């Protein structure tokens, strides 16, 4: 199993599938302009600490209002909606073709192969989402073109991790079983949706990947050289951010960008007075460790830098280490989903799927507005993009990282550590009954 959240590279798809793409012989209606071309599906990976501080600063500003509350509860939150620069994967074309072929024979193996290529598109944040109508996945422009105006489109978000087997002992069977249970909850579903609608399929969205990232980042804690470089990079960034002079900005970049500031000589050359790091600065420094994680962390995601920042800082500053998710909660299916603005309220139009008569926090069903669907179809925008734009940006992922913390040797000498330990204890206390 690939536990590493590296950027997957879109491989070659089968020749037979390719032959089908773009060769439709359907008559051209002027209102149907054929396919839209799509560009790169994910942004490029950054490996420069100074640049990562910038990305992390934006990331933290986006949740400044919730940071303290989340810390006190021992959780981390980030947006399910993918960042700018992520778009629909080309694999959707191939999956659509397979769906059309399904009636003629078993295409399970081909679908597995096609799904493995989807890792370079939407669904980078430990949640995946699909536009569904009548039980069919209608993510792409082509599949959406076949819809009628009266067809209801729903966006189904899942955070069931791709390696979760449940009681069935098999990821695929679990996903299919869950999809069957969700079918009656979808509007006018004529078939059981594909398993990927109910449970994630990408290796990057696995429990193993989360465990690896948390521990890789925590394991960086003893490296004082890395810490010193990160802290000085943050100070350099602060100076860069404050100055409005392009010349001064350029000078600071030339002295810091790609330069190892753990070297006292390099640091002296920057020419700024060292200052004590604020709490926010320490978060920023910790966040850059995502670039140093042994098995790789992805710089531009909402999730990886968020998770890495907290696990590294807790380990580095508070002497905390982390247990595996499976050790603490063997039946944990994935990070729960909540509202971004108000954790108790999902975005308007959304509800939790129901499982065993209780809301299931790992599957959220959102009903798209009919006019929004029409607009996206008219503009030839993928409906998976609609799911991201209209709902994904307001759905929050919540990771109970405090529940994984081993506090046996924890130090509480700093305000952060006090808050982290208190939050972890809160997260480790028995949960009240509620969402599964």
């Amino acid at each position, binding site marked *: 199993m690939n536990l590493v959240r590296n950027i997957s590279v879109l491989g070659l798809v089968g020749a037979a599938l390719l032959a089908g793409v*773009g060769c439709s012989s359907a008559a*051209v209606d*002027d*209102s149907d*302009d*054929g*396919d*839209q*071309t*799509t*560009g*790169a599906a994910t*942004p490029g990976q950054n490996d420069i600490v100074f640049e990562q501080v*910038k*990305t992390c*600063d*934006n990331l933290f*500003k*986006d*949740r*400044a*209002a*919730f940071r303290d*509350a989340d810390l006190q509860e021992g959780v981390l939150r980030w947006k399910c909606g993918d960042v*700018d*620069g992520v*778009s629909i994967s080309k694999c959707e074309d191939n999956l659509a073709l397979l769906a059309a072929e399904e009636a003629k024979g078993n295409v399970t193996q081909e679908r597995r192969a096609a799904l493995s290529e989807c890792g370079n598109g939407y669904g980078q944040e430990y949640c995946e989402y699909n536009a569904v109508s009548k039980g069919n996945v209608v993510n792409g422009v082509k599949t959406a073109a076949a819809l009628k105006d009266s067809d209801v489109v729903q966006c189904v978000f899942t955070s069931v991790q791709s390696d979760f087997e449940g009681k069935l002992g098999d990821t695929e069977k679990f996903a299919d079983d869950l999809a069957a249970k969700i079918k009656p909850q979808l509007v006018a579903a004529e078939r059981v949706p594909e398993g990927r609608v109910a449970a994630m399929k990408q290796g990057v969205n696995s429990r193993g990947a989360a465990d690896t990232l948390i521990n890789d980042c925590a394991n960086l804690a003893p490296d004082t050289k890395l810490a010193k470089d990160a802290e000085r990079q943050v100070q350099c*960034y602060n100076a*860069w*951010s*404050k100055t*409005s002079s*392009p010349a001064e900005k350029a000078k600071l970049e030339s002295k810091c960008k790609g330069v190892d500031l753990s070297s006292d000589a390099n640091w002296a050359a920057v020419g700024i007075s060292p200052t004590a790091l604020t709490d926010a600065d320490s978060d920023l420094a910790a966040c850059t460790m995502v670039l140093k994680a042994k098995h790789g962390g992805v710089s531009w995601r909402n999730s990886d830098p968020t998770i890495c920042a907290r696990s590294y800082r807790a380990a580095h500053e508070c002497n905390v280490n982390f247990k595996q998710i499976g050790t603490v909660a063997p039946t944990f299916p994935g990070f729960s989903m909540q509202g*971004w*603005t*108000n954790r*108790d*309220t*999902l*975005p*308007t*139009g*959304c*509800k939790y799927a129901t499982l065993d008569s209780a809301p299931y926090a790992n599957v959220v*069903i*959102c*009903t*798209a*507005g009919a*006019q*929004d669907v*029409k*607009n996206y179809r*008219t*503009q*030839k*925008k993928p409906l998976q993009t609609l799911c991201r734009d*209209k709902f994904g940006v*307001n759905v929050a992922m919540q990771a109970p990282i405090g529940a994984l913390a081993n506090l046996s040797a924890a130090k509480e000498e700093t305000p952060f550590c006090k808050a982290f330990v208190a939050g972890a204890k809160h997260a480790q206390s028995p949960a009240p009954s509620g969402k599964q």
Partner: protein
Amino acid sequence: MSSLGKRLGLALALATAAATAVACGGPVDEDGESGGEAISGDDSTFYGNDRVGAILKGHPELIPASFDQYEKVFKVGRECARKDSKEIFVVEESQTRLAGPRELHEVTQTKLMPRAVISGCNTGDLSDPTTVKNSYGLFAALISDPNMNDSPKGDTMRMWPLEVIALDNTTGLYNFYVFEPAEFPNDPEGVLPEGTKGRVTRVYRSIETRKDKAGFGQFNVFEKRLEAGKAVTAEAQPIGGGNRCFNCHVNGAPLMNEMQDPWTNWVSFKKTLPSAQMSGPTQKLVSEAVPNASVGTSSLANDLEPIMRSAIQNYVFGTTRTNGWANTTLAGGLPGGISHMLESVFCETELNYASASQSLPLELFVDKDAAGPSSITPPPSFGDDKTPFQLPIRSTRDKETESWLIQKKFLSAPTAMAVRLLDDENDIFSPARCNLLPEITKDLGNDPSKVDEKIRTVLTAKLASLPFATTQPKRAAYIKSLLTVGIRREVAQREYLDELTKRFEAAPKTDAAVKVKEKFRKARAREKFNTRSTPLPILDAK
């Protein structure tokens, strides 16, 4: 000063008050054109088929005099039964939006003056997207006034006159109302005495049918008034024949200038604590917007955004084949007809504003719709960068109008794209596009197929003289293919997008370059809109 004099004084001060969502100006002229003259003994035709009428029709005793009373009567604001939000959305600017001596929308900086938009309280099943109508079916707006008695202590919000818009279930349009005390209070800057009776003014557009009046046969703005114990006043024009609410709501739609991240000046998850020192009712209202962990409530701008987007979309499209703004305008029930609707495609009738957040607004470099299927992503923005700040961009309402025209086949999607490509680096303020409008709308009827044909004909005639034909050949070729019916265009589109991407990548993205574009757009916005349309926010960062 007589109560009439005071009311007129306040009216002048508020006459152009421009709050977000609703802006109708101040109290009504007692002695307007024919105000005060009773013509009817009942209110059966006074209200529209909306939430205001549903409560107040036949119950003049319930007419609120101020926001506090309005909350109780309509169960909104602090009286909203919703558990997670009272739907009180707050924006803080260092301006009052009161009238200025020279400008329609004075932007003189003051201390922070919170304003609020209060939507209609959605107590329905939030998992049903159609229940959002409960929110956008009723909006109220509050502004601040530095002359309020407790303003020095931070209680700046004026509880009356209260401006309200309510969605009419029959027409699909918003009805505009102003609530205020029936008797002008002795202390207009203080708290109203308990039990103060209210009166309501309805402001609307209608054809002028009186031959002796200016604008005969054209649309004028009228108002009529109602209070308990008196009959409805006769239809009258507002003071000076002004447009009142329609000064700002030129298209009659709700407004939210900063309708995207970072929702500049609004209380949002990026700006939760008001920096102003507040007290009294102002403080209480503002605290409803800010996340409150103990009771679990918040009303953040990022939650108002989808409400506003739904409101504007519903307003343009309507709910039947005959109602809503687009159908009504096309049928002659609102001013402008198809020519005005095409102004949304070729020019701009309203604006929205975008600021640097995690990225620069893409509109600085390319038209978003033109670049849609490309891999172009907005350049990142970091730190405390405020460049650009409040950059005027194409409005959501204009885009919805274009979508309506496409879906009703007045425009084909390829033709609409060809129009965008005429100036694919400027989504607004484009002479290349806007200057074509007179030629296109000349003798243009309402036959959908003829509209698209006329646009294609005019654009096709310009193909040979496109100024970028040699420097950007793929763009020219793609426009040509878009204007040619019945062909596939994948290759032309791909080649164009490659060309556009290269142009985007080569475009300077320094603060200096961005500021030049920002300055240009703001100058155009001031020229075109400061006396006419969407109220300008403060356009410069502090």
